[in-house]
């Protein structure tokens, strides 16, 4: 189960993570809907790009720009949060959405917790795989913490001052 577009849904995708002995070149990508690490995509792109459905994930120290030109090929792009306090994934998402114009599913994976999900949604994530030990129904609540935002971001490009008539001196 994951959260997609603010709802809890079944998910047919699996995330491939490399084990210690795996190399991006040699790891066997199982059949079906698989989200592979960037390095595996880069190493095995000839085989993988023929698949009907393939996803890729970026770690927090990898660059969104690595996927430039390939964005159309993926049914899902995921960004991994090794630790919830590692905030690089927010800028990766921003670049994918705002800079590179990625329109498909953008999924947060890894140490994904309720209390970070609102900001994740703002920078462009529309799917979330909360950490396995957390209640996904509780996590879903995190997406509606705020109804007002000052700044523009990926979810709403316009800052508040361009969207509404703000209050003036009484």
């Amino acid at each position: 189960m994951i959260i997609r577009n603010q709802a809890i849904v079944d998910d047919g995708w699996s995330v491939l993570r490399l084990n210690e002995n795996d190399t991006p070149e040699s790891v066997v990508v199982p059949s079906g809907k698989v989200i592979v690490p960037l390095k595996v995509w880069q190493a095995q792109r000839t085989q993988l790009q023929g698949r009907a459905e393939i996803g890729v994930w970026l770690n927090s120290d990898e660059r969104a720009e690595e996927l430039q030109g390939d964005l159309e090929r993926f049914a899902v792009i995921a960004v991994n949060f090794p630790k919830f306090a590692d905030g690089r994934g927010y800028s990766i998402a921003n670049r994918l959405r705002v800079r590179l114009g990625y329109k498909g599913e953008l999924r947060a994976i890894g140490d994904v917790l309720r209390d970070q999900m609102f900001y994740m949604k703002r920078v462009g994530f529309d799917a979330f795989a909360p950490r396995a030990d957390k209640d996904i129904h509780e996590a879903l609540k995190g997406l509606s913490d705020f109804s007002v935002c000052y700044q523009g971001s990926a979810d709403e490009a316009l800052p508040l001052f361009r969207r509404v008539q703000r209050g003036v001196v009484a």
Partner: protein
Amino acid sequence: MYRYDQYDQQLAAERVAQFSDQVRRRLSGELSEDEFRILRLQNGLYHQVHGYMLRIAVPYGLMSAGQVRTIAQIARKYDRGYGHFTTRQNIQFNWIKLQDIPAIFAELARAELHANQTSGSCLRGITSDEFAGVARDEIVDPRPYAEILRQWSTFHPEFAYLPRKFKIAISGGGEDRAATGVHDIGLRVVKNGQGEVGFRVLVGGGLGRTPVVGTVISDFVPWQHALTYLESIVRVYNEYGRRDNAYKARIKILVKALGIEEFRRQVEADWEFTKGGAMTVTEDELKRVAAFFTPHDYAQLPAVDAGVERLQRENKAFANWLQRNVKPHKTPGYAVVLLSLKKPGVAPGDITADQLDAVAALSERYSFGEVRVTHMQNLVLADVRQSDLIELWQETAGLGLATPNIGLLTDVICCPGSDFCSLANARSIPLAQAVANRFDDFDYLHDIGDIELNISGCINACAHHHVGHIGILGVDKNGEDRYQVSIGGAQGNGIRLGQVIGSSFSAAETPEVIASLLDIYVRERHEGERFVDTVHRLGVQPFKEHVYKTATAVSLGLADEAAAHAESLVASYDDPYFSPRF
């Protein structure tokens, strides 16, 4: 000053609800301390020596009388009747209970106050010039920009989990009164040749373990583009700042590692995509926000007040207060008044709930109902009629807020030290007390004149000791509080870092070391020269030699006294009303 509209209010209410729920989940065990810690820090809640410490934001140092009363109320209801103003223009309380957080935050929100992002690895509160809007040397009033930056940085979704804290200061004065050179980003509001307003942007300044004065990344960013430009700086930092070592995680380390040219190149490459985009500030928005900061309805008054001049001649105490605590105002007939929170016997920056209430009332009577906090831990009534000065002096004297020591040696900038702070290596408040006791002769202090003494209890440098004319750093040497002394630091336009004079001193020796430094100054100074200018002219050497020549004698003489002193300062926190105010 800025007032919330329905959107600000709504957002504030939603934040209270969010954090209250997080507190509830922490208390029920649903959230682990590891998960909760980062959330509470972004709400100004630290875990300190006495329990939870709450740091309430005073955005760019400006408060209404009503807000001051709310803070007084919180001090009374939820803490021990007093608070501590910090060097980042905030106020903190030290005995907060987690269970009280929802009630406290609701009260704050009702008064248009909050504790958002006053700690944690995020965009911190914006600090600014305490004389904004009233200083004679002001080029542009920075407050509208500070408020626009406050809103931009509040819950910025991309930058809530940065490698480390990120501090922005903004100054619009000819003289920099916001220490912009020692912030992650320092903004000087300036005008270009065409009279257009923009920002001179400094990046990578900061104190702490690796003190660095910021470097100019851009001489002129037009105000419309400030937010997109800052976003690009913070984005490059978010992506490339070090996350493997907290000591090397500030932006200054990244700027040093890349070099300013490369860092600038990356920022500008990023900015290309957003410059002119939706986050560009509109004329309308600037106008809307600026309307909250228009000059007050000043009366037409004579430039000088005869009564004030008369009392100044007749009463030395009043003359001292005028000289030290009253600054010129850009409107004739008005004055800027500093209320000293450095009365000998009180921990620097501390204020009681009763004093807060009294200050609120004074601000309503004499200064359009506004109060400011300085980054040197004093308060300001910025718009006082000169004809009210005598009355205000008498009233503030009765409150213990008229010590005529602004800018003098006893106007010590001081962090809470290990009496309150878990990070500290040494106590700083008792040392400030010792200095106040050692130098209790006002004539001597006035003769020494302008000098800044900054005492930090650890390398994190909350008291900005690197830029103190005399900077003192508390260190822990085998369980003993020791103090390292540096001289020659300065803030303002000529900002520079001080130089350590040598090995550290005991708590008892340190005031004597200061006395030695001042002896050399008095011997060597030119007419009208400040201590720090003498240090810059002569260099550190003569000061250093004199201090260490006398230090041995000092050590011998003070050894016994030091032991007695240490004993007398044992804290007794069991007393529910104990305060290390002395």
